């Protein structure tokens, strides 16, 4: 789960690897907020797989790659 300066940098890095999924850093920030915001709350309870999948869906990260199983 890495950062790249641009598509060119990513393509060069991927030249010897199978491509996964790429999203803009703005969407990553949105995802991180939804995924981690409650991590330090005293009332924290573990997310279910369904709750985590719903977060991905809400952010627009859908399809087989983002399926938690």
């Amino acid at each position, binding site marked *: *789960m*890495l*950062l*790249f*300066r*641009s*598509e060119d*940098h*990513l393509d*060069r*890095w*991927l030249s010897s*690897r*199978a491509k*996964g*999924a*790429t*999203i*803009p*850093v*703005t*969407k*990553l*920030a*949105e*995802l*991180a*907020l939804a*995924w*981690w*915001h*409650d*991590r*330090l709350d*005293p009332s*924290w*309870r*573990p997310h279910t797989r369904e709750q985590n999948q719903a977060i*991905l869906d809400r952010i627009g990260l859908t399809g*087989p*790659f*983002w*399926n*938690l*199983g």
Partner: protein
Amino acid sequence: MDPADIEVRNATYRRFVELGRAPTAGEIAEATGATAEDVAAAWHRLHDAHALVLDEHGEIRMANPFSAVPTAFRVEAGGRSWFANCAWDAFGIGAALHVDCRIESSCADCGEPITIDVRDGTPDDTNLLFHVLVPAVSWWQDIGFT
């Protein structure tokens, strides 16, 4: 998940934030009134439930999004700093703390430093890209690699 294990988990996260490093089982025993052996046993159950990650010695390796070991993702907020496990977790530290933060990392291709200021959840450099190599269904098969 057992409420007592959640208490150990929450104390572990609180101390991680306060100390800027992973706490020991003894430190969490002191914070919770449990024994260090009880804390270690709770940590193993939490590890099995993917609520935190232990290393091969039973010490905290990850209290996601925080990393117990130095990584390429350093996060500063409120005059303190922590390491994150990956780019996603780097944004997660500010999200979990509910504060603005600065992320210091580098481009995985060229190694050039990347500094991102995150204010109100929004990064100041919007041109960067985030890449995930491993499909979601396999993330926990090897969380260190993921």
